[in-house]
C-alpha cells in the first residue's frame, strides 16, 4: 500500500477551516483526527459544552482549551426535575467559576442547567469577566436577587439574562434598578421564574425602554395585565414576549389599549406567561396570532372553547404548550388549523385527581398525528391509551424524533384490550427511525424493551418507570441501543445481572440513573471496582448502604463516566463505589 502524502496546511489555514465548523460533535471529531489537528483545534475552540459537570474537572478543560469564550454546563441528572435527587446532591458551579475567573478573563457566555449557583458565584462572575455577555440559568437554584444585582451592576455589555425555571430567593424587586442607566445592550431578559410581588416596575420599564435591541422579554407573574401595554409600547421590536398575570376585570379601555399595543409589535412571533387568564382578554392577541410560531399556554387555565378560538387564529403555529383543558376537541381543531405544527406538549391540569376532569384521551394525539405532517416532538399526559392508537400514531408520523408519553396512573394497560402497551411502543420505535428521545408509561413487559433494543438505533435518551419484568428488559436496552447516552429508570425490577453483563456499555453513555430498582449494593461495589472510568454513586438518605447485607438493593444509583475521578463535594448520603477509595464518603 503506497503511503500517501498528507494534505498539509499551514496552521492559519486550518484555523480558518475550523472556524466554519461549529457543532460540538464535529469539533470533537476534528480533535480526534490526529495530533496536529488536535493541537490546532484546541487553541481555536471558543465554545465548550459539558453535559455532566462531574465528567471532567475545570482544570482539565482549561488546560485543553485555553481560549474558550463560551461554556455550557449541566449538573444534576434529569430526574432531579421530579424531586428524585435529594437536595444537596451536588452540581455546584462555584469551583468552575473560580477556576475560569483566572484562566478565561475574556469569557463571554455561561449557560448552566440544573446547577447550584450561589450569590458568591454570581458576584465572582460579575467581578471576573470584563466582557461578559450571556448568563443563562436554566432550572438552577441557590442564589438570590442579591446575586442578580451584582450581575446587573457590573456587566457593562450584558446581552442575555435568562433565569428560566430557576428557583430564586426573591429578596427584593429592586435588583433591576442596579442596571446602570448606561446599559443599553440587553437582547434577552427572562425573569418569569421570580415569585415576588414587588418587581420594581418603573426600573423595568426604563430598562426596556433604553435597550433598542431587546428581542426577548419574559415577565413574571407580578406584572399585571394593565402594565403590559406600557411595556410593549416601549419595545415594539420584540420577537418573544412572556406576559405576567393575564387576568383583570374586563374594561374596554384597558382592552383596547392592550390590543393596540400588541398590534404594534410587528415582529412578535412567540408568546408565553399567561398566568390566570381571563378569556375575554384573549382577543387582544388576535392581531398577532397570524404571525405566531410559538405559544406557551401551560399555565393558562382556559377551557377548550376559548382555546379552540385562539388556536384557530394561529395557522403558522409550530410549537404549542397547553394544559389538558384543550381536550380532544381542541386538539382536533389544532390538527386542522395548524399544519406547521412541529412540537406539542399537553400537561395535566389535575394530575392527582382520581377521575379524569377533562375529556382528553388518546384520540386527541391521534388527530394531531394525522393532521400535522411536520410533527416531530410530543410530550403528552393522558389517562388512557391503546396499542391501536400508538400504532396509528407511529404510522402517521414516522418523522417523530421525540416521543414522551405519560399515562398518569402507573401500569395502565391498553384500555380496549387490557393488554400491555408493548406493541404500541414497539410500533413507535420501529416506524420512527430517527427517534432520539423516548419516555414510556403504562403496563409494559420485557417485550417492549426487546423492540426498543432492536429498533431504537438512534435513541439517545430513554426514560422508564414501573415497567418490565426482569433483567432481560434492561439487557435488551443496554445491548441494543447503540446511540444511547442517557438512561433513567425508576421502580423497575432490573437487577444486577443485566447491569454487570453490560458494564462496558456504561462507558459509552453519559449517565445511568436507577432508583427503586433491584440493583444490589454488592453489584454496585463490583461495578465501581472494575470500572475505573465510571463514577458509581449510591444515594441513600435513610442509612448507609453498608449497614445492610450486600445483597440488599440500593435506593438510588447514579452512574456516569468521568475522566476526573470521584468527586469530593458529596453530601453524607452519597457514596462513591471504587477501587482504592472504597466506600468514599
Amino acid at each position, binding site marked *: 500500500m503506497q503511503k500517501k502524502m*498528507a*494534505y498539509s496546511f*499551514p496552521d492559519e*489555514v486550518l484555523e480558518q*477551516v475550523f*472556524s*466554519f*465548523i461549529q457543532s460540538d460533535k*464535529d469539533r470533537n*471529531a476534528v480533535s480526534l*483526527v*490526529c*495530533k496536529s489537528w488536535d493541537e490546532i483545534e484546541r487553541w481555536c475552540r471558543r465554545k465548550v459544552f459539558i453535559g455532566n459537570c462531574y465528567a471532567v474537572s475545570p482544570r482539565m478543560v482549561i488546560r485543553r482549551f485555553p481560549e474558550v469564550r463560551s461554556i455550557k454546563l449541566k449538573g444534576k441528572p434529569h430526574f432531579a*426535575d*421530579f*424531586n*428524585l435527587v435529594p437536595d444537596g446532591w451536588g452540581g455546584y458551579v462555584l469551583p468552575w467559576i473560580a477556576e475560569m475567573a483566572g484562566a478565561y478573563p475574556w469569557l463571554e457566555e455561561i449557560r448552566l442547567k440544573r446547577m447550584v449557583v450561589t450569590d458568591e458565584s454570581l458576584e465572582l462572575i460579575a467581578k471576573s469577566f470584563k466582557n461578559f455577555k450571556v448568563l443563562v440559568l436554566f432550572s438552577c437554584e441557590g442564589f438570590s436577587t442579591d446575586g442578580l444585582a451584582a450581575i446587573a451592576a457590573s456587566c457593562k455589555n450584558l446581552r442575555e439574562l435568562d433565569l428560566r*425555571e430557576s428557583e430564586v430567593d426573591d429578596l427584593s424587586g429592586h435588583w433591576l434598578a442596579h442596571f446602570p442607566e448606561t446599559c443599553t445592550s440587553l437582547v434577552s431578559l427572562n425573569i418569569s421564574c421570580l415569585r415576588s410581588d414587588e418587581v420594581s416596575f418603573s426600573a423595568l420599564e426604563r430598562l426596556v425602554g433604553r435597550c433598542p435591541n431587546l428581542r426577548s422579554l419574559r415577565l413574571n407573574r407580578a406584572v399585571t395585565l394593565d402594565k403590559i401595554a406600557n411595556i410593549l409600547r416601549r419595545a415594539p421590536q420584540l420577537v418573544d414576549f412572556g406576559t405576567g398575570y393575564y387576568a383583570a376585570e374586563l374594561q374596554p379601555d384597558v382592552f383596547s389599549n392592550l390590543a393596540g399595543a400588541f398590534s404594534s409589535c410587528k415582529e412578535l412571533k412567540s408568546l408565553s406567561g399567561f*398566568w*390566570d387568564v381571563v378569556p375575554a382578554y384573549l382577543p387582544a392577541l388576535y392581531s398577532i396570532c397570524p404571525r405566531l410560531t410559538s405559544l406557551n399556554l*401551560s399555565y393558562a387555565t382556559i377551557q377548550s372553547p376559548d382555546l379552540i378560538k385562539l388556536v384557530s387564529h394561529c395557522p403558522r403555529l409550530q410549537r404549542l404548550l397547553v394544559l389538558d383543558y384543550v381536550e380532544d376537541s381542541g386538539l382536533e381543531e389544532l390538527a386542522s388549523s395548524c399544519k406547521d405544527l412541529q412540537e406539542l406538549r399537553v*400537561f395535566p391540569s389535575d*394530575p*392527582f385527581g382520581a377521575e379524569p376532569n377533562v375529556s382528553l384521551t388518546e384520540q386527541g394525539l391521534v388527530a394531531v398525528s394525522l393532521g400535522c405532517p411536520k410533527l416531530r416532538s410530543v*410530550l*403528552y*399526559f393522558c389517562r388512557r391509551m391503546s396499542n391501536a392508537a400508538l400504532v396509528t400514531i407511529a404510522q402517521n408520523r414516522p418523522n417523530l424524533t421525540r416521543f*414522551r408519553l*405519560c399515562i*398518569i396512573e*402507573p401500569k395502565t394497560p391498553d384500555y380496549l384490550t387490557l393488554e400491555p402497551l408493548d406493541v404500541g411502543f414497539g410500533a413507535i420505535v420501529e416506524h420512527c427511525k430517527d427517534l432520539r428521545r423516548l*419516555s414510556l*408509561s403504562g403496563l409494559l413487559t420485557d417485550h417492549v424493551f426487546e423492540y426498543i433494543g432492536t429498533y431504537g438505533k438512534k435513541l439517545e435518551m430513554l*426514560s422508564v418507570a414501573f415497567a418490565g*419484568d426482569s*433483567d432481560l428488559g434492561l*439487557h435488551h436496552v443496554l445491548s441494543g441501543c447503540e446511540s444511547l447516552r442517557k438512561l433513567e429508570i425508576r421502580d423497575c*425490577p432490573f437487577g444486577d*445481572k443485566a447491569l454487570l*453483563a*453490560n458494564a*462496558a456499555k456504561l462507558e459509552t453513555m453519559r449517565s445511568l440513573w436507577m432508583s*427503586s430498582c*433491584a440493583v444490589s449494593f*454488592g453489584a454496585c461495589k*463490583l461495578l465501581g471496582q472494575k470500572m*475505573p472510568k465510571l463514577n458509581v454513586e449510591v444515594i441513600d*438518605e435513610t442509612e448507609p448502604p453498608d*449497614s445492610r447485607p450486600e*445483597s440488599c*438493593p440500593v*435506593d438510588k444509583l447514579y452512574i456516569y463516566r468521568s*475522566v476526573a*475521578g470521584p468527586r*469530593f463535594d*458529596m*453530601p453524607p448520603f452519597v457514596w462513591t463505589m471504587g477501587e*482504592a*477509595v472504597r*466506600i468514599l464518603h
Partner: protein
Amino acid sequence: MSEVDMAVIKPEMMKSYIWLQTADGSIQQVEQEVAMFCPMICHEVIQKGMGSSKNYAISLPQRVNPAMLSLILDYCRFHQVPGRSNKERKSFDEKFIRMDTKRLCELTSAADSLQLKPLVDLTSRALARIIEGKSPEEIREIFHLPDDLTEEEKLEPLKNTTDDPRIRLLNRLYAKKRKELKERQKLKNIEVEEERVDDRSVDDLLSFINGDNGDSKGIKNSKSKKKNRRRKDQQKNTSANEAIKNHNKEPNGLNQVCHSAEVGQKVRAGVGATSNLHDVEDDIFDNKNELDDGDIDDEIDPALKEKIDREVEDFARRLNSDWPERMQEILSFGHERKPVHFSLNGNGSLRRYANSEQR
C-alpha cells in the same frame, strides 16, 4: 517586432501586464487588473515596484504552483469585474469550488499565501462542509492524515500527583469516615448482632437463571411503598400551584406527578454527620495513629463475588451475548489500569493499590 519595440509603440499595453514567477521557475504575464486582485501581488507591485518586466517578475510563494495559479487567476479574472451581481458571483463560486479534495486543499493553501481572503473563505467553507458530519477515521482517510493520537491523549488522563490538594482532602474525608465507621462498629458490637443472611436463597437464584420469572416480578423494595403515600397537603388551587410547578419542569411519561411529587417533600431522615470540610481539618492529625486497627474490610465478600460472577456468566450465556469478550474487557481493566487511586494504609500512609491484591 521585438518586445522592446512593442514597449515603445504601445507602452500602455505593456504596462497592463504583471510578470509572475512560480517556484518551479516558469514565468508568465498576467493582465494587471486580474493580478492586482491578489493583495500579495498588489503589495509587491506598489511597495516594491516589482512585476513590470520579465526580469523583475514577482516570485510567488512556494504554495502557488502553475496549476493553482491558473485557478486563482480564473477566480480573480471573474470577480475583479465590477459590474457583476451577487447572484452571478455566487453562482460562479459554486461551480468554481467543485473539485477534488486534494486540489481544494492546495487551492486553499495557495490562496492563503496570496492573502486572497474571499477565496480563502470560499475554499475553507467548502473544506468545512466536507469535514462536517464525518467521523475522525473518515476525515483521516480523506486528508491522508496519520492516526497518531494515543489512547491516553484521546481520553485526557487523570492527574495523579500526591500533592494534589484533592487527594489531601480525600484523605481527610476518608479519615473521618473511618472514625465514624469504627464508632458505629463499637456500638453494634455491644448489641447482639443478627446474623447477616443473603435474603435470596440459592434456589431462587437458580430458578431465576433457569427462566422462572415468578419471583422477579415481586421484587419490592420496602422503600417504594413510601412513594405511594399521598401528600397530605394538597394545594389544589386551579391557579399556580405545586402540580403545575412540577409539570413546569417538563416531566415526562413517568407518573412522577402522582408518585414522586411527594418524594420531594419527604423529610430527609436525620443524617447525622454533616460533611463540613472545615471540621475535618482537625481530624487528620489526631487520627493518624488511631487508624492502625481501623482496617475495616468493606470489600465485597469473595464468596458472594464468585457467586455473582457465575450468575452473570450464566445469564449472559443464556442470552448468547459476547460474554467472553466483555469479561475480558472488564477483567483487563483490573490489570492494565494504571494505579491512579490512593488509599490509606493502616498507619495512615498512602499506598498504591496493586491490582493483584484485589482478587
